C-alpha cells in the first residue's frame, strides 16, 4: 500500500508541477503569459463557514508533516516569470511597485478609525489572549477592540499597528487597524449582547463584563484605555485557512497551500518580523461578492505576535528559535541537565520596554522558527526565499522608521530599537537569501540583442561581482515542443551581455538564455537562471524565468536522512 501511495504521489507530482507554467505536450508559453492575476473564475458563494480546531491543528503541525510529501516542489501559484500574480491571497506592492511613505503609513486603512462618541459593546472577545470585545461605533461600523495587557502597556497594540502595515506592504490582505483610546464612560452594552460564562451559561452581557476586561487592561494616567480597533472584514467570514491542502468546498482553491509562494515566503517575512504565532487561527477567509461574482479572500488576519512581546507579556525567550516541541533539543537538554545551551538563553536584548525580546545582532534568518512549523513554510525553497528577500530588501531605512513610528510608542527608545532591529534583520535576510541562489533578476533583452539584468546581491552590497563575469548560453526555443537549439555563448564582465549573431528576428519567435555567474566563491551562481523572451513588434518581452530546477526526485524522507 505504501509503495502504491508513494508511486501515486510521485506520478501526481510529475503530472502536476508548476501549474501556471505548463510544459510537456502543450505549449510552454501561452499568449497571456506571464499572467498578472490569478483568476477566481468559479462562484464561491456557497463556501461554508468552518472552524479549524486549534489544538488539533497545533498537534498535527508539531508532530506530523501534513501536506504534499513530494520533496523540493516548485511553488505552484507563480506565473511563468517566477513571480506571484495578484490574487485573492496576495497583491503585489513593495518591490514591484513604488510604495510611498504616505501609503505605508496608511497601510490597509481606508478611513480614520472608529467614530468618536458612544460605543456599544455587542460581543465579547472569544479568541486570543489579549483582553477585548467587539463594539459598534456611532456610525454603525463594527470594530474588534484589543487592549494592552495590564503589565505590558502599549507594546501589543504597537506591534499590531506596525506589523499589519509591513505585511500589507509585502502584499498580504490585512485587517484595517487603528490605535485609538476609549473613555469607559463612553461604553454601553447592547441589549442583544450575549456572553458565555465560565460555567458555560449564555446570558446577557453586562457592564460588569466590560469592567472585567478593562481590569485586565493597561490604563492610561487620564483614565482612558489605549486600544487597537480592528475593522470588521468585508463579506461573509468563513473561518481561517490551513497552511496545507485546499479548502474542499472552494472551487477556486486549486493550489495546495503548502505550494503557494506567498505562504512559503513567511519563512522570510516571519523571520524578519518574528511572527512566531503562525497558525490557522490567525488567518481568516471571507466570501467577497464583487460584480455579481463571489470569491474567497484570504487574510493574514492577526500578525500581532510579531516582534518581542505577546498580548499580555514579553515573549518566551525561545520564541523564534525553537518550535514548541523539538525532539533533538529535548533529548540533549534532558541528558546534559540543561547544559545544551543555545544563544537565546543568554543573548542580550536592548533596553526597550515596549519591544522587549527583539533584536538584530544575533538574528540568523535560516535558523528562525515559528512556535509551530507551518506546512507551507517548511516547503520554502531557495527561489521562494529569494523572492521574499527582494521584497524585504525593498524597504528602505526611512520606510522602516516611518512604519515603526505608526506604532505610537510611548518610549522613544523602544521605537528606535525596533526600527534598528528591523533594519539589521533586513540586511541579514538579504545577505543570506540573495546570495543563496543565482541572484540575477530584472532581465531585459534589447532590440540589438544585448541582455541586461541586475545582480541583486551585488546591488545590495552583499557580494562582489563575479570574478570572471557572467556568461550566457543562447538558444532558439520552440514553444510548441519545448526544444531548445543552441545559438552560441557570450560573456561579459558586467550586467550587460552582448547577444550572439544569429538571433531570430521573426515575430512570435522565442529565445532561451541561460545566465550564470563565474566565480568560485559563489558556487550557487554557476546554476544558470533560464530566461525566455518572445519577439513581438521588434521588441523582446520576458515571458519565462526558471531560477531553480522544478523538483528534486529524492523523497523527502530520504533527503532528511
Amino acid at each position, binding site marked *: 500500500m505504501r509503495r502504491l501511495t508513494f508511486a501515486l504521489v510521485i506520478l501526481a507530482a510529475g503530472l502536476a508541477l508548476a501549474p501556471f507554467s505548463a510544459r510537456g505536450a*502543450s505549449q510552454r508559453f501561452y499568449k497571456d503569459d506571464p499572467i498578472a492575476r490569478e483568476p477566481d*473564475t468559479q462562484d464561491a458563494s456557497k463556501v461554508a463557514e468552518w472552524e479549524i480546531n486549534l489544538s488539533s491543528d497545533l498537534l498535527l503541525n508539531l508532530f506530523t508533516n501534513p501536506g504534499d510529501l513530494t520533496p523540493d516542489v516548485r511553488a505552484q501559484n507563480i506565473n*511563468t516569470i517566477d513571480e506571484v500574480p495578484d490574487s485573492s491571497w496576495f497583491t503585489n506592492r513593495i518591490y514591484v511597485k513604488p510604495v510611498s511613505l504616505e501609503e505605508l503609513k496608511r497601510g490597509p486603512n481606508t478611513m480614520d478609525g472608529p467614530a468618536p462618541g458612544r460605543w456599544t459593546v455587542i460581543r465579547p472577545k472569544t479568541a486570543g489572549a489579549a483582553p477585548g470585545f467587539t463594539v459598534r461605533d456611532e456610525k454603525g461600523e463594527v470594530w474588534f477592540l484589543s487592549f494592552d495587557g495590564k503589565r505590558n502597556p502599549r507594546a501589543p497594540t504597537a506591534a499590531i499597528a506596525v506589523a499589519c502595515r509591513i505585511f500589507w506592504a509585502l502584499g498580504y490582505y490585512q485587517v484595517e487597524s487603528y490605535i485609538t483610546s476609549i473613555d469607559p464612560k463612553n461604553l454601553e452594552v447592547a441589549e442583544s449582547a450575549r456572553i458565555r460564562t*465560565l460555567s458555560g451559561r449564555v446570558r446577557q452581557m453586562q457592564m460588569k463584563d466590560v469592567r472585567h476586561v478593562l481590569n485586565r487592561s493597561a490604563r492610561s494616567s487620564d483614565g482612558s484605555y489605549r486600544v487597537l480597533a480592528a475593522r470588521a472584514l468585508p463579506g461573509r467570514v468563513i473561518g481561517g485557512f490551513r497552511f496545507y491542502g485546499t479548502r474542499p*468546498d472552494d*472551487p477556486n482553491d486549486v493550489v495546495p497551500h503548502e505550494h503557494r509562494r506567498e505562504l512559503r515566503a513567511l519563512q522570510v517575512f516571519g523571520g524578519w518580523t518574528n511572527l512566531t504565532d503562525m497558525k490557522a487561527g490567525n488567518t481568516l477567509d471571507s466570501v467577497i461578492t464583487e460584480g455579481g461574482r463571489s470569491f474567497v479572500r484570504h487574510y493574514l488576519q492577526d500578525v500581532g505576535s510579531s516582534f518581542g512581546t505577546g498580548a499580555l507579556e514579553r515573549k518566551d*525567550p525561545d520564541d523564534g528559535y525553537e518550535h514548541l516541541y523539538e525532539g533533538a533539543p529535548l533529548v540533549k537538554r534532558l541528558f546534559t541537565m540543561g547544559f545544551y545551551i543555545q544563544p537565546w538563553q543568554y543573548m542580550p536584548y536592548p533596553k526597550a520596554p515596549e519591544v522587549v525580546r527583539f533584536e538584530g545582532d544575533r538574528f540568523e534568518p535560516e535558523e528562525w522558527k515559528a512556535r509551530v512549523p507551518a506546512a507551507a513554510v517548511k516547503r520554502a525553497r531557495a527561489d521562494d526565499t529569494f523572492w521574499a528577500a527582494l521584497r524585504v530588501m525593498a524597504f528602505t531605512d526611512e520606510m522602516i522608521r516611518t512604519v515603526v513610528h505608526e506604532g505610537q510608542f510611548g518610549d522613544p527608545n523602544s521605537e528606535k530599537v525596533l526600527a534598528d532591529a528591523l533594519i539589521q534583520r533586513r540586511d541579514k535576510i538579504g545577505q543570506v537569501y540573495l546570495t543563496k541562489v543565482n541572484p540575477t533578476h530584472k532581465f531585459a533583452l534589447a532590440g540589438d540583442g544585448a541582455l541586461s539584468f541586475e545582480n541583486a546581491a551585488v546591488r545590495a552590497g552583499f557580494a562582489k561581482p563575479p570574478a570572471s563575469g557572467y556568461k550566457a548560453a543562447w538558444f532558439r526555443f520552440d514553444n510548441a515542443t519545448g526544444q531548445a537549439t543552441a545559438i552560441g555563448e557570450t560573456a561579459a564582465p558586467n550586467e550587460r551581455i552582448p547577444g550572439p549573431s544569429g538571433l531570430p528576428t521573426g515575430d512570435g519567435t522565442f529565445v532561451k538564455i541561460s545566465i550564470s555567474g563565474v566565480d568560485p566563491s559563489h558556487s550557487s551562481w554557476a546554476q544558470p537562471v533560464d530566461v525566455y523572451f518572445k519577439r513581438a513588434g521588434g521588441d523582446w518581452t520576458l515571458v519565462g524565468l526558471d531560477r531553480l530546477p522544478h523538483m528534486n526526485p529524492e523523497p523527502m524522507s530520504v533527503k532528511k536522512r
Partner: protein
Amino acid sequence: MIQPHRSPIAATALLALCLSPPAAAQDSREAEIAAKQAEKAKSLQVYVPSKAERIITNFEREAIISPSGPFPFLDSPYRGGGFTLGAGYRQFYGDASFWDIKGAYSIKNYKLIETSTRVPLGTHGHAGVRGGWRDAPQVAYYGLGMDTLPEARANFRLKQTFFDGYVALRPQRWIVLDAGASYEDYKIEEGRGSAPTIEDIYNPITAPGLGISPTYLHTQGTVGIDWRRSPAYSRSGGFYGVTLHNWADQDDVLTFSRLDADVVQHVPILRDTWVLSFHARMESTIGDDDVVPFFLLPALGSGSTLRAYPSWRFRDRHSLLGQAEFRWIPNRLGMDMALFYDAGKVASRREDLDFDNIKSDWGLGVRFHLPMYTFLRIEAAKGSEGWNLVFSSSAVF
C-alpha cells in the same frame, strides 16, 4: 490527520486532478486555470473533520465550553493511600460557581466521598463549603520523634466526617488572605493491613490521644504573599505565608493550636534554563501543655516532604522541613526535570528543631505540566531507609 480527503490515494488523485494540465488543451493561462477550477467545482465537498479532530473538539466542548459533567478525580483519599482512581460530577451555576460530588478509592482500600460548592467573590477571591466522609483503614504510625524504626510501624483506621467553609481572598494580586472553619468528627479504630494495629504496640503515652475519637471545630487563617505565576507550576516568584490553626475539641480534652510557616522561592537562571527552587516549612504546636492526638501531629515522610520515606514516617509536636531542587527544562512546553534534596526533623520541643539528627534524602524526578499546572510528577528518592518511587498529580511545592 486532518485532511479533507481521507486516503492518500484519493488525495493523490485530487492533486493530480487539480494541478495537471487539463485534458482539453487551453489557449491561455487564464483558461487553463479556469478549467482546473471548473473541474474542481464539479466535485466540491463539505469539509469532514477527521476522527482525531472530532475527538479533540468534543473534549474541548465538554471540558471548556460546557464544563459541567463528569470528571476524573485522582487525589488520594488520605495521604499514604497509594494509587487511586476516582470520578466526580460537577455542575456549574451562575457565572462561575459550581457544586460537585466526587468519590475516590485507593489500592489500599482508602475511600473518600465529598461534595462541595465554590462561589467566586468578584475578581478577588472565592468562597466555598464542603462536606464529606473518608475512611483510611491502614494509616501508619511509627511512634514519636526521629529515632523510631521502620519495624515499629503500626496501623490505625481513621474515619472522618467533615463539613467546612472557607473564604480565599486576593485583595491585591500578591496578597493572600484565607480563612476557614470546619467541623471534623474523627473515629479511630483498629488498623488493617500487614502491620499490627496501633493498640497492640502503642499506648496513650507513646501515641497521645490513643483511645479517644475527638470531634473538632477547626478554625484557621492564613496571611501571605504569593508572587508565583501559579502555585501548581512556577519557575519564578515566591510564597511566604503563615497559618494559624486551632482545633477545639468539643469535649475539651484534646484542644490545641498550631502555627505553620511556609516559604517557597524559585530562582530562575539564564532565562529559566535552570531553576533553583527552595521550600522551608515549619509546623509548630503552640501550647506546650496541650495534648495533640497522634494522628494530627505534624508529620514528615510522603511524596511531598521527605520523599524517600513512607507517609507519616516521623511525627511529633513540631516539624521542620527544608527542600531544595535543581530543575532543568528539556521542553518549555511541558517537561521539567529535577534533582532534589529533602531534609527534615520532628521534635517534641520547638527548641530541638535544629540540624542534629535530621533525616534527608535525594533523588531525581520528571514533571509533566501545563503552563500553570503540574499533572504528573514521577520521582525516585533515596534515603537512609532505601529507595522510594513517587507518583503524584500535583507539584511538590
